[in-house]
């Protein structure tokens, strides 16, 4: 098969392998990490124990972790089926239905929080009947924090999972169904495990986004220490009075999240067996 006219091309084989990938990767990584250095430079290391010892810091951190985790789980339960549904749509203009899911993402969080308020608030679309029939007021409670976080983070999970579902060989599902599996069984036992990396990625995105959530929370849930004051809210409030403390709190937030995500990421099998 050797072909003299292309034999000259052989010499080009040993061109440098991966720099067109490694250079932008390094630039990107640096761009994401440099500001972290800027932040670390502002941390008042000597005051750290005092700031971290405050009761409301522990409260806020606890609330943040609890509500981000609850929100991520809610996203999982509601978002994965939603992603599945979106990935199965085949009608004209399905792109617009999918785009609707992104609404919370595009709205600035404060606007989102305000929209939540006008829906689930005491005089809101859903909130008003709810309040009249059961006396329940949703906002300004820990559930409201979780709702706000779920609202802003769900699109991330949905889009990430839908992307992975679309990348999947559609014949896997039909094969499962031909073996007698219902849609639900096939989804649970075949599709879900097959898109596990995408779901994991989506969960991480949703959890992280929920942890950093600020605008929608303050607008919808308020800023009550112990009930609705998450760490980002505490950080924001410190920013004007005591920026050093704000840096210290940011550090807490980052370390907590890096630990959680890093541990989860390292514990997961590096790569499951593949077909």
């Amino acid at each position, binding site marked *: 098969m050797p072909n003299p006219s292309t034999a000259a091309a052989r010499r080009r084989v040993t061109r440098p392998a991966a720099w067109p990938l490694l250079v932008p990767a390094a630039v990107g990584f640096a761009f994401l990490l440099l500001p972290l250095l800027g932040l670390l430079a502002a941390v008042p290391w000597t005051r750290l124990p005092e700031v971290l010892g405050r009761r409301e810091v522990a409260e806020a951190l606890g609330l943040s972790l609890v509500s981000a985790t609850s929100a991520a789980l809610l996203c999982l339960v509601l978002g994965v089926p939603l992603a599945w549904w979106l990935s199965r749509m085949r009608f004209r203009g399905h792109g617009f239905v999918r785009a609707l899911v992104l609404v919370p993402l595009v709205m600035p969080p404060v606007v989102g929080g305000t929209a939540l308020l006008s829906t689930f608030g005491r005089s809101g679309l859903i909130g008003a009947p709810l309040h009249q029939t059961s006396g329940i007021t949703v906002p300004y409670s820990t559930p409201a924090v979780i709702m706000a976080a779920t609202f802003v983070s769900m699109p991330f999970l949905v889009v990430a999972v839908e992307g992975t579902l679309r990348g999947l060989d559609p014949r896997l599902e039909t094969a499962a169904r031909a073996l007698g599996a219902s849609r639900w069984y096939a989804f649970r036992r075949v599709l879900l495990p097959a898109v596990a990396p995408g779901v994991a990625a989506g969960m991480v995105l949703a959890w992280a986004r929920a942890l950093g959530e600020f605008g929608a929370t303050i607008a919808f849930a308020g800023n009550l220490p112990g009930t609705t004051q998450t760490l980002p809210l505490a950080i924001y409030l410190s920013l004007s*009075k005591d920026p050093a403390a704000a840096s210290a709190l940011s550090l807490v937030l980052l370390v907590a999240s890096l630990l959680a995500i890093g541990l989860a990421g390292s514990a997961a099998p590096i790569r499951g067996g593949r077909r």
Partner: protein
Amino acid sequence: QRQDTTELTVAAAASLEGVFTELAGPFEDEHELRLRFSFAGSQELAAQIVQGAPYDVFASADTAQMTAVGEHALDPVLFATNELALIVPDGNPAGVTGLADLATGDVTVVLCAEQVPCGAATTRLMAATGEEIPADSLERDVTSVLTKVRMGEADAGIVYRTDALSARDDVETVPLPEGREAGIVNEYPVSALAEADDPALAGAFVSYMLSDVAQDALREAGFGTPGTEDASS
């Protein structure tokens, strides 16, 4: 939400955080209750109150937001005022000496956007003095202006006196006589709310704000008090 000990929840403008935290102790002791504060931008708090936030008292950084909550506010009273201050980073790198220096366009200036209370006051100041200040950024709140000046990313900014005072370690205050001359002050109303579980206690907090102890503390923090002509004593 309520626990065994009575709680009184106060929604207060972010700029009041320092004083209110300081003033909480004596009031809690006297009434054997726990005070809970929700600090946020006044407009956010107002929106929440309209939507049924379980707040007992609302302390706003301007009268507009108190008006916005309408009949939720039972009996608003003014308890403090605030005035504008011109701040520069430590060492005053651009050598700003007064409002006129800001109008030249050579210095990097950040101001509050006119949609938020401090920005509205700044706009009135510019109208009164006739100085057009070309801002490099119109910030969303006092905190943002303060942060940019503190970090040296702006050569000057206009904030409230109380904020300038609280950040005195990092920023310098340049005299701004024009503000007081033009009578540009922000008024802080406080009111018990219709939702209050115990209107009497909420009323007591409002009264406490007018007490000498509270008024002294407010003055200490740089606020003016309605009773005093010279808010800057």
